[in-house]
């Protein structure tokens, strides 16, 4: 026998449902490394082993993270520091032994001993599959499937780069939009003065020259002369004290026009403060609002789950209509009324916050300008008020941004803001504007001075806006030029990635189809499954299938949950085979859970046909399926979790097949238990035999088949095909007519039985004798019936056993 193994031993301590002594899974059997099958009921600790593997490999446990359980949930509740660890011994000498120990001071960084990076080089695709992983995957959106599969095929880095390059495009576009907006504003500024949009340097010079002509300043011929002419004009302004003053006052006039009109927030603050104080008076009432959210979410959950008689939080049954009950609770607490008040207050808060923000912005614009100039008394007072109000306004704004529940109830907006100063600011508007107007008017009485200042301001504005426009054009041009190359590089890179992903998909697609066909061979309407990769704008993976003769894509809406899981399992097998080709080890945790009983043996067919050179660690809670697995893989190590203890974890012993279990019950003189085990086993075997041999079983509306009906159908079919005098026909007839067996058939499901251990032992032995004649020693499968070229055959699938 070839030593095909990869793993020698897995040891786990203090992790999830496993405590101490450490749980050991030893893969040695008769000096060879073998696969291991472990039987355990739900809750016996099987999944802790897969979790331990995932944690050692990646430092995370995805499904726990999705459920909100972080790293602190990894150690067993009783495990002390240093007692939570996982150790795996590999046959690969380069890897050797890897150990991960939970690091309580850095919980996301387990202490790793051994060559984990080498292991990660070898294992590219997750080598484990849980039932929950399978169902999660098949119900993912098609784009998520693409992402998951591509990452699992080793394209994670390439896909990250794709996404980052794509986000780069968005950032460049944003940059372009911002520059475009700025350019538009420069065009508007220019238009306001020139009455036309900026075009080019000659038209700009022409516009300037009209002004220069008025001020008897020599014409500009070249753009380089503009600054000199402007300086000349400035000289004209500066040499006359009154012109200088007019220029200053016109600037102030422009600045003040940005400050006013200013919103009167005083009454809004008073109203808000009043309502806020009233609302905050009863803290107890406010805390009830948390319940309101809970109740509303509860009602939403019940309605979406459509389970009206069970609490979605504690899972306890409730007699009556749960939704009505919650609504009554809500009404009782007057929560609706309280919430209405809160919503009104929230609205006021937002409005007030916006108003204050607007005022702060105005202050930000005006204050710096007023700082640098010599002012008249009225404006000095205005400047002082702006300065004094600025910080309190900021404080109020910051407080309002917190939301009603978080605003300190002692905070008083009315005392914080000096209302006298606000009032002064508002009342000063007319006075200040009038004052400025009077000053400007007085200074503008001299027409030539007025014209000079108007021209100076026009030229200044024209120059500033034209320069801004010109610079922005250059910037936009440069950005577009870089963007073209960036897009080219990005598209080429995405194309290259897509091609590589497609090649990998093609590589697994053939195997996915092969495995899916095995799993779904009894579905006559399903044919030719393919995984289709859509790699255009919206990258996606879909299953396409021939359904009733038509190509269906996506096939999801036509497939049952079990068929979808066949697809998911096929992808897992194909991917593990292709992408971990240097690591022939897989863990299967209860993956047959969603498969119908008849389909479960097909998983064994895939394992024996395609994964015979793999080492497998398999968990199941289906004892009958396990029996079948043992027949197919007698060399595998068998283990059984026979219980779970809080302080220890899973209790492990050598696994037993059905016959070994029955023998143990007989030795312990437990005929009822032995009868139960044998009855279940025999029902399963007879169902398979009747199916294999195309036997007719008497129909009943309950769709239940008892042992006597099954054995009768089996006997009749064998008799018909092998004749009455065939030794097997005779053996079955004797078995069926045995009084002990008939008695067993009538009573095996009852809790009290009227047969003894020796009697059940005889029945089991008689059946074992029959089984030895109809089960192949080579392929470990039962006989089946087939009609080929008008010849009838009864033989096992490998052809070794022919009757």
């Amino acid at each position, binding site marked *: 026998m070839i030593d095909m193994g990869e793993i020698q031993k897995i040891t786990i301590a203090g992790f999830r449902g496993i405590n101490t002594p450490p749980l050991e899974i030893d893969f040695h059997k008769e000096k060879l490394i073998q696969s291991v099958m472990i039987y355990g009921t739900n809750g016996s600790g099987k999944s802790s082993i897969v979790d331990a593997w995932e944690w050692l490999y990646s430092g995370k446990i995805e499904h726990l993270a999705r459920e909100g359980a972080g790293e602190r949930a990894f150690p067993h509740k009783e495990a002390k520091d240093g007692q939570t660890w996982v150790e795996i011994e590999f046959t690969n000498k380069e890897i050797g032994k890897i150990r991960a120990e939970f690091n309580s001071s850095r919980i996301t960084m387990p202490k790793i001993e051994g060559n984990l990076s080498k292991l990660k080089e070898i294992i590219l695709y997750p080598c484990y599959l849980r039932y929950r992983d399978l169902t999660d995957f098949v119900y993912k959106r098609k784009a998520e499937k693409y992402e998951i599969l591509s990452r699992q095929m080793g394209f994670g880095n390439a896909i990250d780069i794709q996404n*980052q390059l794509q986000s780069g495009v968005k950032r460049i576009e944003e940059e372009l939009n911002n520059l475009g907006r700025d350019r538009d504003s420069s065009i508007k500024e220019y238009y306001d003065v020139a009455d036309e949009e900026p075009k080019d340097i000659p038209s700009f010079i022409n516009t300037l020259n009209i002004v220069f002509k008025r001020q008897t300043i020599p014409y500009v011929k070249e753009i380089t002369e503009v600054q000199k002419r402007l300086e000349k004009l400035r000289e004209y302004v500066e040499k006359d004290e009154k012109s200088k003053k007019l220029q200053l006052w016109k600037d102030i006039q422009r600045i003040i026009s940005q400050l006013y009109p200013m919103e009167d927030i005083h009454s809004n603050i008073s109203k808000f403060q009043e309502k806020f104080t009233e609302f905050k008076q009863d803290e107890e009432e406010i805390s009830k609002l948390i319940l309101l959210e809970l109740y509303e979410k509860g009602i939403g959950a019940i309605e979406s789950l459509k389970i009206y008689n069970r609490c979605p939080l504690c899972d306890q049954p409730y007699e009556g209509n749960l939704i009505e009950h919650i609504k009554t609770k809500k009404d009782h607490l007057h929560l609706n009324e309280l919430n209405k008040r809160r919503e009104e207050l929230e609205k006021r808060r937002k409005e007030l916050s916006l108003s204050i923000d607007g005022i702060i912005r105005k202050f930000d614009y005006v204050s710096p300008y007023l700082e640098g100039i010599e002012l008249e008394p009225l404006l000095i007072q205005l400047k002082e008020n702006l300065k004094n109000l600025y910080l309190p306004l900021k404080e109020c704004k910051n407080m309002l941004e917190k939301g009603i529940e978080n605003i300190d109830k002692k905070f008083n907006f009315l005392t914080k803001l000096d209302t006298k100063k606000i009032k002064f600011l508002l009342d000063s508007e007319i006075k200040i504007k009038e004052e400025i107007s009077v000053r400007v008017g007085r200074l503008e009485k001299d027409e030539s001075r007025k014209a000079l200042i108007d021209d100076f301001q026009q030229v200044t504005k024209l120059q500033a806006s034209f320069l801004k426009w*010109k*610079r922005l054009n250059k910037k936009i041009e*440069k950005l577009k030029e*870089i963007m*073209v*190359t960036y897009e080219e590089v990005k598209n080429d*890179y995405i194309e*290259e990635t897509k091609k590589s992903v497609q090649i990998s998909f093609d590589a697994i697609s053939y195997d996915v189809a092969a495995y899916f066909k095995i799993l779904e061979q009894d579905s006559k309407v399903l044919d030719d499954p393919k995984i289709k990769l859509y790699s255009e704008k919206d990258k996606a993976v879909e299953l396409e299938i021939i359904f009733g003769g038509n190509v269906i894509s996506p096939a999801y809406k036509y497939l049952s949950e079990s068929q979808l899981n066949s697809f998911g399992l096929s992808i897992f097998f194909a991917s593990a085979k292709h992408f971990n080709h240097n690591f022939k080890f897989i863990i299967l945790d209860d993956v047959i859970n969603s498969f119908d009983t008849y389909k479960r043996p097909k998983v064994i067919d895939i394992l024996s046909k395609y994964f015979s050179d793999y080492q497998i660690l398999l968990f199941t809670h289906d004892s009958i399926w396990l029996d079948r697995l043992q027949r197919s893989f007698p060399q595998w190590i068998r283990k059984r979790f026979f219980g779970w203890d809080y302080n220890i974890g899973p209790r492990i012993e050598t696994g037993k097949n059905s016959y070994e279990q029955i023998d143990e019950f007989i030795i312990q003189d437990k005929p009822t238990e032995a009868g139960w085990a044998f009855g279940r086993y025999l029902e399963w075997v007879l169902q398979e035999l009747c199916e294999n041999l195309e036997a007719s079983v008497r129909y009943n509306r309950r769709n239940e088949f008892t042992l006597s009906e099954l054995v009768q159908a089996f006997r009749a079919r064998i008799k018909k095909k092998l004749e009455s005098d065939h030794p097997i026909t005779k053996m079955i007839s004797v078995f069926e007519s045995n009084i002990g067996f008939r008695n067993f058939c009538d009573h095996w499901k009852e809790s009290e039985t009227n047969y003894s251990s020796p009697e059940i032992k005889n029945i089991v032995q008689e059946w074992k004798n029959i089984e030895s004649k109809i089960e192949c020693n080579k392929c470990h499968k039962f006989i089946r019936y087939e009609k080929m070229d008008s010849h009838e055959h009864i033989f096992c699938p490998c052809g070794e056993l022919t009757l």
Partner: protein
Amino acid sequence: MRNPIVWFEEAVKSGKYKKDVIVEIRECISEEGFNVDKFIYWLSEQIEKSIGDD
């Protein structure tokens, strides 16, 4: 699929793309992926430089 870094290095050598841009994109690629912020910072610098001394 080749290592992404190798792909971008070959893209630089290929002469297919505008040199300064592809060189910068390559500079922004590492084991961590593509550093968008670094690229945008460079882009802003280039834009500022483009206005010259007007």
